[in-house]
């Protein structure tokens, strides 16, 4: 049921030309996938996806639309046939690839044999906190998380460098707006 809702949302994103609706549908898509994460036992991930995807990402995209335009032009030069062919071939290759993937929900899958049992059994004594996701995130895989925090930090610097400063005049015949310059952004 959730899966079919996700597919419908994704198809609607392809069809619609109104970017405002597209961004809103993306928020719905994130919320649906968050509920799917709860079904799949990943409560931490669901939490993050709901707050990030349905909340902050939608606000950022709406902010971009407010700064640019909210209407997509009808594609004239783009022929849909070649992209469709590429997508179909890629999808067929991926579906062929799934024939080697172990079945969904099987406890004997290779992914469940390597480090996961050790984390689940020993983290209570070694780390002493109940949430295994937190202990793996911050302690066992501390290097990863440090790196990812640094990526977020770098992305913020990039955004601030790109659009954080005072606005310069566009090349087209837009009048200058000196009274609205930000002195500090």
């Amino acid at each position, binding site marked *: 049921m959730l899966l079919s809702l996700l597919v419908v949302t994704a198809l609607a994103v392809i069809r619609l030309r109104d970017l405002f609706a597209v961004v809103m549908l993306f928020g719905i898509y994130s919320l649906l996938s968050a509920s799917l994460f709860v079904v799949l036992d990943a409560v931490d991930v669901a939490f993050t996806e709901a707050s990030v995807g349905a909340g902050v990402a939608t606000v*950022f995209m709406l902010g971009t639309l407010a700064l640019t335009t909210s209407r997509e032009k009808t594609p004239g030069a783009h022929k849909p046939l070649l992209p469709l062919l590429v997508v179909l071939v890629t999808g067929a290759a991926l579906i062929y690839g799934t024939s080697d993937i172990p079945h969904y929900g099987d406890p004997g899958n290779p992914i469940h044999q390597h480090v996961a049992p050790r984390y689940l059994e020993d983290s209570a004594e070694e780390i002493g*906190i109940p949430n295994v996701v937190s202990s793996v995130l911050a302690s066992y895989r501390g290097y990863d998380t440090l790196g990812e*925090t640094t990526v977020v*930090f770098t992305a913020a610097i990039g955004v601030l460098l790109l*659009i954080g400063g005072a606005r310069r005049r566009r090349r087209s015949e837009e009048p200058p707006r000196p009274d609205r310059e930000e002195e500090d952004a």
Partner: protein
Amino acid sequence: MQQYSVPRLITKLLLPLILLFALYVQFHGDFGPGGGFQAGVIFAAGFVLYALVYGLDNARRIMPPWLLRVGVSLGVLIYAGVGVAGMLLGGAFLDYGVLDSHDPVHGQHLGILLVELGVGITVASVMISIFYAFAGRGR
């Protein structure tokens, strides 16, 4: 948005709850679902709501951009600092067991708490400053 009283009132009611919930998620992440990443985003979402309803200038007065710039780097610094502190106390980088001389499990607790705090500070400041950048651009 200045003239609509209902959103302003609702925001006033919701904002403390959102920020409190963010702090709960931050410090209760060891026991239930939650942690620095989620808490940072929720905290930022609260400020985004405030800025949307009350205007960017009021939000800038409460959370000035220089404070955000400090916060962005402070979080990473706390994280790396915990790692270096572990090294100075004789362990490996990011080995929290040595932070408490009596019980390694307590050290792990402390380390995870500090590290999650660093992550939370960075993520919250990054999200709010990105929002400021987008919102300040359109004026």
